[in-house]
């Protein structure tokens, strides 16, 4: 049997959403032939959490799920100490999810100084500076299972990962969620009449969709190989971004009718000029229901 890479899945302050989401990875059986969890919160593993914390167990990749705080303990040991212990021996550290990467929703919890491993929202923190270069961030709430699996395979094969400034692989995070959205025609012609769950209409203008300024591949690598939020008729909530979660996720923040957040890299004048032109035309096909029988 080929050598399996040893992976530790360490949950910090987490809802375990990434843990559960990863179970939907369609090729999990194959994955478990190639990787071995020395510890995982829900998958059977050779060691208990106590053993992981107390003993010196060989490990190749450390996966961190959940936000970090000096106050938070696992098996009576500070999670920060556990991370320090394993980061010394592993080849790579992967922050799985937005909490482990940027702090996420648990920044609102009662724990003190909650943050991600290297970032507190957009701000870089120095606590783990020595391991910055061997970290990969996979933000998302949750992280897409295929993004996690493919990244681990890339690490296994020692493939070079091109990372953005938040250490996210560009392969998955250089795109926006808008890329591949099947509502692009509605966006182009500013057809904003949308009701949640409907096939028609773009959700950027009124319903809070953050797809044009959110870095992720949700419309390129579909969820459960089937769908994405925007395809199903729910706005992208920007879950891969340092600012996640914002408030009022289902309403587009506008100032005098102009969306406060514009598609990445598009200047206000360029946006308004294009929008003014698009809005001038009424495209009948896009105003109607796709299926009217």
């Amino acid at each position, binding site marked *: 049997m080929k050598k399996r890479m040893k992976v530790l899945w360490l949950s910090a302050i987490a809802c375990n959403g990434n843990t559960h989401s990863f179970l939907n990875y369609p090729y999990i059986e194959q994955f478990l032939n190639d990787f071995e969890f020395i510890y995982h919160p829900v998958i059977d593993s050779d060691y208990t959490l106590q053993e992981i914390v107390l003993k010196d167990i060989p490990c190749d990749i450390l996966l961190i799920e959940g936000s970090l705080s000096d106050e938070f303990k696992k098996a009576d040991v500070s999670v920060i100490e556990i991370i320090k212990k394993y980061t010394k021996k592993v080849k790579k550290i992967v922050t799985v999810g937005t909490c482990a990467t940027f702090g996420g929703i648990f920044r609102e919890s009662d724990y003190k100084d909650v943050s991600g491993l290297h970032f507190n929202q957009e701000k870089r923190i120095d606590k783990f500076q020595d391991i910055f270069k061997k970290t990969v961030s996979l933000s998302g709430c949750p992280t897409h299972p295929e993004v996690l699996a493919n990244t681990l395979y890339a690490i296994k094969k020692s493939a070079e990962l091109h990372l953005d400034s938040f250490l996210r692989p560009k392969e998955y995070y250089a795109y926006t969620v808008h890329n591949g959205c099947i509502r692009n025609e509605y966006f182009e012609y500013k057809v904003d009449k949308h009701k949640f769950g409907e096939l028609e209409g773009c959700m950027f203008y009124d319903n809070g969709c953050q797809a044009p300024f959110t870095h992720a591949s949700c419309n390129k690598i579909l969820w459960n190989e089937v769908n994405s939020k925007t395809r199903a008729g729910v706005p992208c909530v920007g879950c891969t971004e340092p600012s996640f979660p914002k408030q009022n996720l289902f309403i587009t923040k506008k*100032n005098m*009718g102009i969306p406060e957040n514009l598609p990445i890299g598009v200047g206000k004048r360029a946006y308004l000029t294009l929008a*003014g032109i698009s809005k001038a035309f009424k495209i009948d096909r896009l105003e109607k229901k796709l299926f009217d029988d």
Partner: protein
Amino acid sequence: MSDRKQGKKEQIMQVALELFASKGFYSTTIPDIATSLKMSVGNMYNYFKSKDILAREIIKYISIYLGKKIRVINEEDISTKEKTRKIIEIYFKTATKKPEMIDYFLRIYLSNREVFKDGCEGMICVNEFVTEVMIYFEEGVKCGDLRDQDFFSAFGLFMGYLGGMVFLKGENILPKELDSYIDDISFNIYKALSL
């Protein structure tokens, strides 16, 4: 297009603009415009293929002219209150120095929609101008000076007021020069739009 040709085009638009504004759109013919410019009618058609096309180009020309002026104000590091006053000043200054521009907008563009229906749908031909007004509003709301509301309710208040004053001036109904109303109108508009 060469600078020379562009210059000539602008010269034609300026003359046509004056004629349209003074004589009316339908009473002004291409030969009238050519005569004013001491150009042959044939040569005129090298620049504009029809009177309707010329009419549409003129409204874009005015929109770009005013849009550029407002853009300069938008890019200044001043309060929304000061911006409001400066936009009103520039609008009235244009109405005084180049009355044909505002007249054209009010009396030709808004009154002869059939000429503009193909090619000037919605606000396409006044895009530069409207975009700058939008930016003025948007930035005013963002910095907490203006109250958030529907764009058109604010736009109507702003442009309807200014257009109305210029129209009254054009009808020789206003007893005073436009400039002398700037203080009060700036006060009124800012008060109506601010938080």
